[in-house]
Structure formats: C-alpha cells, structure tokens
C-alpha cells in the first residue's frame, strides 16, 4: 500500500478508506498548522470571543462556536480552546494554566459557564482532527495496532521486550518493541519495531525520524517502522543506514539459527 505521490490521483480507489482518512487528516492538520498563528493573535482571540458572546446572547442553543470555527476555517476544538482561554482569562484575571484548559476541554462540565460548556462540547465532538476525543481515538487506534503487532511477533516466536518493560528499566527512549534476538527483514538486521497507525507522509515521517526513529537507532541500532496505513515510497531511503519502512508485518524474516531465539 505504498503510495507514490505522483500516482496518487490514479490509484486513489485502490487505497483503503483508512489510508485516505489518515492522509486527509494529515493534510487538514498541515493546513491548520499553516493558519494557526493567524488565529492565535490577541486580536483574533478578542474578535472570536466577542462574536461568541454576541452569538450566545442571541441564541444560546445555537452552535455559535462551531459555526464560527467553520466560518473562519479553523478546527472547532482549537476555536473552543481560544475562546475558553479568553473566557477564563477574563473571569480569573489571570492566564489560565494549560492543564486546567486541557482538563476542561476533556470534560466540559467543569467549565463554570453552562452555555460555554455546551458550546465547547459541541466543538470537540464535531472536530474530526483535533480535540480530546479525536486524540483518544488516535490513541486507541495506535494501541490496537500495537496489540496486533504483538500478536504477530508472538505468532512468529520472536521474543521481544515491550515499551513498558523498557520504561521500567529506565530507558530514555523506547520503541514499541525491542527484539531480544535481532532478526533480518529483507536482508536488513533490525533490533526494534515501531508501529505507526497512520499514513507515512513526508512531514510526519521527518518528524518521527527526528524525535523517535533516529533516537532508537542511536540507542539500539537499526530497526523497522510499520506504517499500517501506508507511506510514501520514497521515504524508505534509510534502509542501508538502518531504518526500514513497511506497511505490514514483514514476511521475509530470517532469524538466527541455533540461537537462543526459543528462549
């Protein structure tokens, strides 16, 4: 399910829905990132807040905040955050802590204003790419794929140390799985496997390389990344150096014979 960017338009029907959703979500996030700064000025926040106040004055039941977000082409959750921040700032006369905001976004019933709580809730459930709910779904998807990967490893009899065990030992950076006995995938030795339940596009891959994959390499040597929703073929260019990309569990696995693999 590698995607060749040039061939994207032609092969779009052959891609799974989740791959397309993943790509859509990434594109949407890129767009939001591009315009993020614009919406985050003090003036913008003030404008949005006033519009919100006016809106709910007219009709508190109307989806004021959601419509506002749609109108200015901004993620509803992020809009909710801006307005909530502004609201709390006015109420408390202080800049509210990030923790507090996050907690209120997660559970709007904590918001001391009922109307705003409704509005915020509406924004978060209506957001397809941001917000606590979406984060949770993403987390769940990631976890599910990790479980699937674990299953496959067990099935192949490859013994591994999972992330939580590594963390307990005090590793500072931990891939999803470290193989206790390294194996060769398509002729490349790998020591670790990282599961990514998303599409590997250029920007996310670069970010992952920087934050995770190279760090794993720096500590554990070469490894394998599985982008379950596919990736751009050209990104698989660090094979020689030790970062291998796949979109499924590899079939070409060579294990060390007469070894302690059975341990």
């Amino acid at each position: 399910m590698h995607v060749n960017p040039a061939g994207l338009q032609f092969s779009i029907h052959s891609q799974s829905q989740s791959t397309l959703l993943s790509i859509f979500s990434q594109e949407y996030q890129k767009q939001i990132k591009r315009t993020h700064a614009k919406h985050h000025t003090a003036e913008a926040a003030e404008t949005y807040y006033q519009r919100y106040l006016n809106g709910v004055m007219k009709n508190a039941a109307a989806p004021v905040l959601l419509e506002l977000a749609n109108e200015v082409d901004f993620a509803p959750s992020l809009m909710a955050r801006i307005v909530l921040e502004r609201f709390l700032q006015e109420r408390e006369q202080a800049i509210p802590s990030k923790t507090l905001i996050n907690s209120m976004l997660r559970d709007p019933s904590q918001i001391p204003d009922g109307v705003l709580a409704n509005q915020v809730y509406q924004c978060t459930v209506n957001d397809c790419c941001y917000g606590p709910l979406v984060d949770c779904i993403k987390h769940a998807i990631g976890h599910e794929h990790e479980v699937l990967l674990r299953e496959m490893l067990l099935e192949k009899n490859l013994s591994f140390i999972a992330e939580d065990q590594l963390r307990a030992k005090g590793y500072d950076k931990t891939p999803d799985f470290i193989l206790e006995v390294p194996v060769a995938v398509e002729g490349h030795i790998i020591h670790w496997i990282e599961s990514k339940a998303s599409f590997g596009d250029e920007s996310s891959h670069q970010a992952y390389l920087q934050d995770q994959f190279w760090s794993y390499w720096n500590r554990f040597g070469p490894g394998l990344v599985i982008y379950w929703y596919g990736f751009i073929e050209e990104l698989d260019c660090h094979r020689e150096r030790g970062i291998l990309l796949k979109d499924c569990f590899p079939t070409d696995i060579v294990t060390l014979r007469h070894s302690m693999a059975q341990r």
Partner: protein
Amino acid sequence: MAAVLELLLREEVAVGAVLRWLRQGPGHRPAEVTGLVSLSLLQKDFVPFLLNFLREQTSQILTNGPSTPAKTPNSKAHGSQRTGSERRAGHKASLGSFLTATPEALPARRGRRKGGSAVSTSGRQVPRDLGRSLAEEEDGKNDSPSWSGGRRKRSEVPLVSARSPPSQLNLNNLEEFPPMGAASVPGGCKPSRRINPTPVSAERPLSKPKTCFTSTPVSQSPAARFSSGSNLEAFSTVQEGNLTSVISSSLQEEREMLKKERCKLLHQASSPAGISLDPGTPTKPSYTRSASLPAESHLVTCADPAKVSCKKQLECLARLYSSCIAENLVPNIFLELFFVLQLLTSKGTSTAEEEEESDLEVNERSKDASGRQHFRSVHNCVYFAVQVLDYQYEIISHLEKGTLKFLAENERIASFSPTLHERLRQAYESSTAKVSLLLPCSVQSVSFQPETDNRSNFPSDRAFHIFKKQRDIFYELLREWEDNHEKTGWDFERVLGNKIRAMMAHLSATCNHSHFARLFQKQLIQMCKGPVGGGASWGDTPDQDVLNMLGPDNLSRLKRLQERFVVPQSIRGPCPPPSFPGCQQFFRDFILSAGSYQFNQHLVDSLCLKILELDGLTLVEHEHSDGEADMDEQDEKKRFTVVLLSLRLLAKFLGFLVFLPYRTVEQPTRDLQDSAVALRNQTLPVLDVLKLLRQSIRDHRSILTVPWIVEFLSLADHIAPFLDYYRKVFCLLLLMVLSEDKEMSFLNKLLILAVLGWLFQVPSVPEELFFATDVRQEGVMVDTVTSAQALDSVPLVDQQLLYTCCPYLGELRKLLASFVAGSGAKNGGFIRKITPTAAESLAPKTSVTQRKLQVELEQAFFHNQPPSLRRTVEFVAERVGSNCVKHIKATLVAELVQRAEVMLQDKVKEEDANHDKLLEEVCAHLYEEGAQALIKGREFCKKKGPEAVRVLLPEETSAAVLNSAEDIAVELATEKACGWLSANIAALIKREVKATFNRMLKVPGLPLPSEDALELRRDCPPGCQHRAPFPSQIINEIKVHNVHFLDVLCVAVGPRDEGEVIDHDWLECLLGRLSQTLRCRKFMCPTSEQQLAKCTVELASLLGESVMIIKSNPTYGLLKLLLSVWKEDFGAPVPVQLMFSRKNIGYLSEVKQREWDLFLFMLHGLVEHDLMRTSEIESCLRSLGELPWPSDFLKELEMLSRVFTSEHRIEEPRTNPRELTRQSLGTVTAQS
C-alpha cells in the same frame, strides 16, 4: 667518518672490525682496529654517515636523470668545510679524496641544505617541503622547467650535509672537480650547473619513493655538528644566506600541487590546531609524482651481473650496511629496506649508461676508494641491493605474501642471485601471510545500557533529559559528517562547530561531561576499532587496484581521477606523519571544534582508565603442551589484536589531547624551547607511560605496550621529547631497539622495530635523538622478571597485524609493483572483520578474612590445574554473583516495592502528610524483610553456580575437581553477591520505593500500577475470538451519534418524528457491539475504556434529553441495555455522575415541557445496578439544586429529588422498577 669507510673500502680494515668498533663505547680500543682508534670519537656519527654516503652515491642512478654533475659548490659551504677538514687533516689523508668523488652532490646539496636546515630547526615537515620546492626552483630557473626536480630532490637529502659534518666535506672538491659555478657569488648564490634538460619529468617511477626516503632524514643535532668541528659562524651564515632563497623560491608546478594538497588538508582539518595539516603535505607531492609514472618503462636498463664493477667494495658495503640493519643501528630498518628496493628497481636510461662509462673511467683514475662512484651503474646498484636482500632474508621472508611474490618474480634477483631467488620463491610459496586492508567502517551506535545510562545514573531529571538530547544530537552530527564530509567545500567547523559548542554548553550546565565522554569514547572504539589506525595511508589497496587495472600507461588519467577524488588519507611514503584516517577524523575534529576544557579533561580520564584496563589484561593463559592450545592460540591472537588496536587508538587520542595545548606548527626556537622545558618539567604527566613501559619490559609485555606508547608519543609536540620525563621514555624505547631480546617472537620484534622506526621519523621527534650517544647511555635497562603474563615470547603478531599497525610497510610492495610494468598482480581486498572481545574484568579476589587458610588451599587447588579452570570458576563466580543481585532486584525488591506502593497509596490519600517522613516510615518497615535478600542470594548462587561450572568445564573433569570447582565458584559468587547486597539492600529498596513514589505523585490521574494490574487481569471470556470491533471504532461511532443528538438539541427545529431522531435498531446494535468490544480485552487500553465510559454517559444523557425534548416514547430498552453494559462489561469505573453535570442537565432547563420519567427511570436504574448509591444521587441532585437555574426548573428539580428520595426510603426491598417509574412519573407530571 669517511676515513673509516675509506679504510674499509681499501680492504685495510675488515667489515667485522668496523662493526666491533661501532658496537664498542668510545673509550674502547681493541687492538685489531688500530686503524680506527683515532677515529673513535666519530663512532656515533658513522652510521648516519654511512647511510648518507649510500644515498649520495646512488642519488644519480635513482633519478634516471642525466649523470652530469649537477651541483656547484657553494663557496660558503666550501669555506666551512675547509675549516673543519683542516682540523682533521692529519689523520685523514684520504678523506679529501673521498670527498672529491662526490663533488656533484655535496656542495650543492649543502647549499640547498642550508636552506633546509635553517628551517628544519623550526620544524621538520616544512623544511622538507621547502627543501623540495627549492630544489625544484633551482632546476627550473637554472635549467629547464621540464626537468622536474626528482633527481634534485633526491640528491637534496637535507640531512646529508647535516649528518656529515661540514668539516669533512669536500675539502678537495674544488681542486678535483672545479665546479661550474665556481665563479658564482658566495652566499646564497644560485648554483649553476651543466644539465642537459631532458624531458623526463614524467618518467621516474621511482622518484616518489626516493623522495619519501630523502624526506625522512637522519641527521645530527646541531650540537653534534658543532662537536665534530664545524665552524658555527660560517655555518649559520650559510643558513641565513640560503634561507631567503628557500622561502622566496618555488617551482610553479610544485607550488600548485602543494597549494592543492594543502587546501585539501585544510578542508579535512579545519581546526586551527589541526595537526595533520603540515604532516600531510610533505609526503603528498611525492605521491603525486609517483603517480606520474612513466609510460616509457621500456627505457629501463637491463641489469646485467656481468657488468658490475668494483664488486669487492660493493660486497663490503653491503655487508657493513646489512650489519648495521641487523644490529638495529639504523633508525628505521624498513626505511633502509625501502632504499634497497629502490636500488633493486632502479632504472637507468641508455644515456645514463653511456655517460656511466666515462664517469667510471674518471672514477677509475681516482685513487680514492671511498670517493669512487660505486653506484654509477644500474648493475652495481642491483648487485648491491641483491647482496643486502640476501643478508636481510629473514626480515624479507616475513613480509606479506604480495611483497614476497613480487620479490620472487623479480628477474633482477633471479639473474643476480639464483639462490636468493630460489629462497624467495620458496618463501612465497609457503607463505600464508595474506594481508588485506580494511575498507572504511560504517557508523554504528553505542547501545543504551540501563546500568550506566538510566535515570539513576544522573543527579537530576534535568541532567538525564539533557543527556538524552545530547546523545541524539551527537549521532545527528555523526550522520551529517558521514554523509557530507567528503563533499567538496564541506567544512567541519563551519557546519558543525556551533552545534558542537552548544552541546558542550548544555553538558557543562548539567555536569554531564563524564557521561558524554564515555559515550564518545565508546563510539570511537566502535567505529575505529578496525585496523584503520596507525596514522598512515589507508586506501592503499583501492589505489593499487586502480593502478593495476589501468596499467601504468593510463596513469596520467589516474592522476586526474585522483585529483578529483582526493582520498583524505592518501598520504604516502614509508614514513608518513601521524594522521587520523577515516572516522577518526570526525572525533579529532569534534574535539577541536568543541574546544571544551571540561570535555577534554573527562575524555582524558576516560581514555586513561580504559588504556590502563586494556594494558593490564591477561591475554595469554594457555600452555602450549596440550592439543587444545591451537584453538586457544587463535583466540588469544584475536583477542590480542583487538586489544592492541584499541589501545593504539585510545593512546593516539590521549596523546592528541595531552599534547594539544602545546602544539605548534613550527619548531620553537631554542630559547623558547629551553624556557618551555624548564616550565613543563615541573608538571606531572597525565598517564605514567614511563612506569607502564618499564613494567611492560620487566614483565615481557612490551609487544602490547610499546605499540600504543608509540602512538601516544607520535602526537607529542615539539617540546615534549626534550622534557626530562619523555626523554627517559624515548631512551627506554631506544634501548629496546638496540637490545636483543632473544626470546621475543620474530614478528613481535619486527612490529616493535617498525613502529619505533616510524616514531623516530615523526616530525616532532627530534631527529638526532636516535644517534645521540648520551641517550643510549642514559637509559638504564630494566631488569626483567619471569611473569606468567609474559607476551613477548608468544607469537601474537602476524603479518596482518603488522601491516595493520604499520600500513606504510605496504610501500615496499607498491615500489615493487610499480617496477613490474603492467603488472596484473591482484590485491587482496576482502574485508576482514575483527570480532571485538569485551574486556571482562576478572572476578575480584576473595576478601582476605580469617579464612586465610581456606584461601591458600584454594590457590593450591588451582595451581596444578589448567589455567582455564580458574578462569572458568572466576568467570562463573563473577557472572552468577552479578546475576544473583539482578535476580534479587527483580524478585524480592520488586515485591517489596509493590507492597510499599500499596501502603503509600493508602497513606497518601488519607492525609496530606510529609512525604519524606512517609517514605522513611514505609521503607523502615521493609528493611527487615530486605534481610531475606541474603538468604535468597545464597540460595540462588548455590543453585546456579554448579550448573554453570558443570556446563563450562570439560566433560572429563574428575568428580572431585568438579566438586571443588563448584564449591569455590559458589563461595566466590555468594561472597560477591551477598557482600554487595548486605551493603546496599537498604539503599536499593529506598531508591526504588522513592522512584515509584515519585512516579505515583507525578501522575495522580492515571491509574496506579496496582490498579492497572487489576485491570490487566481481566481476561477475554473463554473462547473469545477477538473479533469484536476495535474500541477506536466504537468511540468514533458514539461520537457520531452524540454529534447527531447535539444537533437535535441545538437546532431547535420543532418536534420531529422519533424515528428521524433515534434509530433504535441502530443504537441497539451499537450497544451490542460495545458490549462485545468491552468483553474482549485484547485491544482495550485504559484510555480507550475510560473514553468509552465517558462517551456512553454522554450518549445516555443526550439520548434521554433528546427523547424528552421531542417527546417521543421513552427508550427504556436502550437505557436498560446501557445500564447493563455499564455494570457488566466495563472494567473501568463509569463516570455516571457526569449525567448530573450542569452541562447535561442544562439541556433540560431550556426546554419548556420537561419529561422527567425517563430521568427518574435512569436514577433508579443506577441504584439498582449498583452504579451509584442512593446517597450519592441525592447529593448530586442537591448540588444541582444549588446552581442558578430558572425558578420553574428549580422547582421541578426539587420535586424530582423529593420523589426519588421518598421512593427509595420506602423502597428498600425493590419492586418492579417499571411500575415505580410509572408512579413517580405520574406524580412529577401532575405536580408540574
């Protein structure tokens, strides 16, 4: 000097006598050498004189240039010589005549040399260069530019003049050989000469090696020169006189080449202190020249044994010379061998031949034996060379196979000495010494080791996290370097300098230098542990391959190619200066760019420690008697190789760091030197190499120690060798060269001689050191002892290791290869991997207690057993002990920590107590139980120790021995483990508990580990196929529903059909699947489940309210389903109280006609399913009532509350909820 030679050549003195004379101290005068008695003062100068004499004599033939006398005497030089010789005129009747024989060379060289030597006092590399360019310049100016300076270069041997004291030079020079330039102005005049400009620049295949050779001069110290009677004043005038011309002159082409090379080197070593800058240059041009090998190899004269003249003298010289080599009287035997091979492969042209005749005649006429040109013909040179090779057969036969092949196939050897040819052929055929050179290594990371790298090794969280980043940055830099450093224009300092310094600043801020130094050092060993070491030309093999492929005809193309692909380490010559080839470059540049004192200091510490550790390793323990020795030997050899190469690498970097602050490009002046010496004599050396060297000699371990000490010293600055301390080290090394250790294995000795020979040619090592008599006398030989760890007598070095440590030995082969035109010789080019052997520290000895006797018995037990038994037992004890501690940590301690966690959890909830105190209390409680560790530890060792010993010892070991070995291993392991445990268990428990506690405090929201464990214990129902929908899918669906309901709630678009709003079947199906998902635990994670719980509560609220708003029939079925899912299927607590949140209730407040029966039904359901207690609901309702609602809403709320309360008071024994709801519903609606 010359007189001695004269006597010898006239056969008035036997070679043996001269040798004896040489060997004896100055005061010694054996009767047989009466002729030499008066010359005793000159003994120490004789060898340098002989070496230079040979160079001089052969300088003509080796150039392929015209044999016309090229040099004009420089009047000044001449003057100084005269003074000297006058002094000695008495006993040197023949001296003059000898000197006349070499008039062409000496005076002119002298002149040039002046320039050279003047500079050479301030740095050896530069002068060599300058010397060369000067020669070129002269050639260019005076003759023809096309007559490139090859031959000049050769003859220009800078040290020759220095070596042969001026006093002995050319007294008769002017008389017998009136120089062309006799009329030339004294003092820096340009010598003119008769030269037929022959365009041979491109055809001197051998000129390169020659240049290399001459560029590594052996000269006397200024002091020696003066003592031998030269006129200091005249000398210095001459120096000055010529210095100017040296500086101002340079042949254009040469200059260009130099520029290019320098530029390249500058790119490699951008650092201001980049030490490889200058060292790299001198040999470089020589290489370039060699690359321009002639296509006209057909001009090579066919050497003919029948045409050899003055055989006797040649034989004499060969014997004398060979003896000097054999006795290690020459500074570098391989340099001499190289020279001999040059002679062997010299190519005279036909012109040379003809001129030869006339010159020979001239020589014949001369009565002076030493003055005669013995080497004017190729035949003579080859004759001499073959003679010497014959004498040096033992060394030669130990060279690698490729070299032997060339020698065995050399037709000159075959025709001049069939016996030698036969011996070489046999040696070649029986040789197994195939040597391969390694290709550049690839970057691999150093693995993260929790024992040294996890949080507990850092003082603070911040330090830990910063180091985490530093590690990643370090590898990022490494990758960037790997990708780009060979690209043109890439500059280490410019690209990486600031990043490195920023990194250093972070390290300093958090005191992380020691961690980083360790990482740096490990990475260094990891990347450079291969044979790429030793400071010389790697990449030889590829070049040779190309050369072989292309054949000499295409060499100009090759040259162009080479210019484009300048291999950074393509420094050539038999004595290249120290360098940092391949990956080492990165580490050197990193250190230079970092410029951090802290880092350097930590790195020095780290390097010293590792060096000491490796140097002290017991590497050889086998006995040669039994059959398994072979296997052991191989292992030991491997291990030795790895250790030796690591040591050399570490020592090189240590030397680099230690001498870095003192590094100068030029040799400091004498004054500066004296003051620096006085100053630096006061400080202690970082690593006591003298002590280590002495120890190694005493213990017969010099084969391990000398090579790394040489690496260390090769990076010394110009002053260091003059310091008292290092002078002693050098003296000791020199003694090693001279001493004859009969027991040392031949190749071991050869390696030591090769590296020492190289060291004495390193730029910063003063050249006179080798010949200084006082040095030889100063050093007191260390007494040796018989040591069980002796290495010198064990054949540990093979050709692979020899060539790996001394890649410059490959130059011999290259020289021979270049002689064979169009040779198709194949090079071994396979990659050889060296498996690194971890340096396992040996088990600590049992602590000496009252069981001293036991220990003695134990020692006795081992004494008569094979050493491997002891090694095994110690190894087992060490491992089992260590594993025991790990095991205790993982079981007992982990258990205690878990209990502590439970205790802490309760207490933390109870009160806002003092955390430290709390921790202390809990820990104190656990310490007692910690004592169990010792019991468990003992059990562990008792169980595991014997198992391991049994597996590791030979099957045939007798039962008694086995039992004893097992017992000792268990005892040692127990001692180790329990010793550690009893000292550390309390601290360990405390640390772990504290860490857990901190984690607990940090994430109060997240389920605590124990809860988590509880969670995980929930399993799928038996026979679960794990086919349930993924949690993420369900969350997503509920999200969609909630959006839908919200729309209904918000967009108040009048009453709609129930069916339009609520798709009952669909919802029911969703809830059914939710139930499945929750039951299958496989893909569930806490966050997913919590979110599901929350979503469904929201769903319930929205559903209920939507129903109320649109006044549809209450969807009791759906709510009941939800209630049962909450109760039965959720593992996580369901936040049902969220239904009472202001937000959710708020939806109702805005509706005019409220339907409370569904809500009431829900409340009852919650109680019934044990999801909430009555009191909880009551309090929720109460707090709801406190909020600012519209008054009518408040009234209804109160009503509802009352109804709920009353019903539940009455209703303890529950009746049908449906009926109940009906009742209450009626009541509420009636009242509202």
